[in-house]
């Protein structure tokens, strides 16, 4: 078909494929296309429809605005959560470097006391960003380490406490309980507590369920979408915005500490449809 002029008969199929292949998901895709269909003028050409679709995607993403600028103004504790292997530890240190760049004093809490090599991994990465880390004794619980970290945070007058947590599947009740407990410990510090959900862009529809469960358990301010330097589009964030109103704050685009981008709905929408 050609880009301009008369709509090809299969325009809806073509757009559906573009959205499905980006992991937007069946339901969200059809809601978007239905809404698009209602707005279409009789004379619309395919290019025009594509432009309208892009606008619609940007609108969905902007509906829950990411106040990325003022995110770190307040002294706060921020929990970094997500399923196993999504990129939490790497992202946390990228974030620390980003916040330090704004002149804030950042402290990290090594609260993954479970996985082999987790604390060492964080220490090495933190060393590269020159960010201090509070780690616990062997066998200490994550909440106990967090408690110690809060003490240091207060004593040293730090601005931002970023808490690394162990990867956990949202289906594991005891692990979700552990996360709730960590949130309570953080809240007992008296500082505002934020939660950022780390999602791997290569995941499919399960990322939506993860978001639902984690938000229900401990709440979340927003999402960091990692591994966007691959071929996956992370379209599930549209479904997450539509259903949960959760914004995307950052994109992880590589394994180095500078590989963190501020989320921009327009460039994201463009990449999604390309």
């Amino acid at each position: 078909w050609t880009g301009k002029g008369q709509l090809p008969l299969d325009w809806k199929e073509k757009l559906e494929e573009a959205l499905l292949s980006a992991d937007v998901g069946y339901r969200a895709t059809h809601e978007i296309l239905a809404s698009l269909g209602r707005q279409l003028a009789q004379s619309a050409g395919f290019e025009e429809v594509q432009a309208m679709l892009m606008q619609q995607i940007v609108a969905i993403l902007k509906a829950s605005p990411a106040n990325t600028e003022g995110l770190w103004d307040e002294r706060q504790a921020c929990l970094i959560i997500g399923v196993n292997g999504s990129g939490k530890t790497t992202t946390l240190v990228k974030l620390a470097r980003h916040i330090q760049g704004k002149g804030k004093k950042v402290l990290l809490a090594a609260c993954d006391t479970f996985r082999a090599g987790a604390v060492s991994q964080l220490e090495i990465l933190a060393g590269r960003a020159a960010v201090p880390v509070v780690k616990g004794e062997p066998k200490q619980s994550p909440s106990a380490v967090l408690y110690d970290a809060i003490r240091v945070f207060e004593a040293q007058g730090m601005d931002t406490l970023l808490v690394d947590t162990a990867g956990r599947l949202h289906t594991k009740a005891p692990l979700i309980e552990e996360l709730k407990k960590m949130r309570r410990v953080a809240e007992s510090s008296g500082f505002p507590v934020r939660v950022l959900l780390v999602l791997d862009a290569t995941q499919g529809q399960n990322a939506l369920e993860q978001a639902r469960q984690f938000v229900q358990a401990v709440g979340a301010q927003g999402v960091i979408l990692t591994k966007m330097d691959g071929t996956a589009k992370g379209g599930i964030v549209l479904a997450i915005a539509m259903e949960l109103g959760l914004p995307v704050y950052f994109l992880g685009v590589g394994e180095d500490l500078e590989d963190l981008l501020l989320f921009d709905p327009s460039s994201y929408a463009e990449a999604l449809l390309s």
Partner: protein
Amino acid sequence: RLQERLNEALRTLKGTGVIKEGHIEAAFREIRRALLEADVHFQVARAFLERVREKALGQRVFESLTPDQHLLMIVHEELKALLGTEAQDLALKGAPPHVILLVGVQGSGKTTTAAKLALHLKRKRLEPLLATTDVKRPAALEQLLTLAKALNVHVYPWGKRPKSPLALAEEAIDFLRTSRYDTLILDTQGRLHADEALMKELVQMKQRIQPKEVLLVADAMTGQDALKLAGTFHEAVGLTGIVLTKMDGDARGGCALSMREITGVPIKLIGTGERPSDLEVFHPERMASRILG
């Protein structure tokens, strides 16, 4: 659930012997929806539905008294046919020593799976040796050493001088040949299938170590990208099997269908947790039910 949706779509067809095009299309839309919601790649879903349609019409499903049950049965059969009709464990045939190479994208579970495989082989009375060529990820060796220590499995040591992944792989093979170990499980750095340089390194590594098994370790939650992922890895290094990790979650796992379709390679094992014992042989019929939800 799909069964109920098919029942609904075909309700008015039952027992009337009257086939309405609209009803058939509604039923196929429901199957397509179930597959897409399960993360099956949309192109794989389309090809799959064509095969189901052919079979369904050939078997005159829509003239039966219970078309919904018949159709669901065909869908199940086709899924199992695609996923493999029987469980397949590792094939370490021929004289030892054997080499198992683990590959995959970042965070999929390779290092954890390496340790699980070591336990799996120990239980089969084999003597596994673990090694990693991941010089990039901070504390990668420490992670493997910690896991191996709990299993009383030896890890090939790196030595003091920093080496390249290829050099480490060759060294591990040389050591294997003169050692008492019969199998080497080689863990590698996570890499994007889109990273040409790293994919090239993998091709070179395979050429030098001649592994008996090249296993793609893939996350069960992978979405549409699974098709390109598996296709690219297979084209580059020739996979002999797939290990699907994090199956203890509630991801439907439709990526298994896409990966199987594009590579023709069997899913041999699944990861069902973070402990070394959380490794099971893959069962196609269970996966078929899981994908359909």
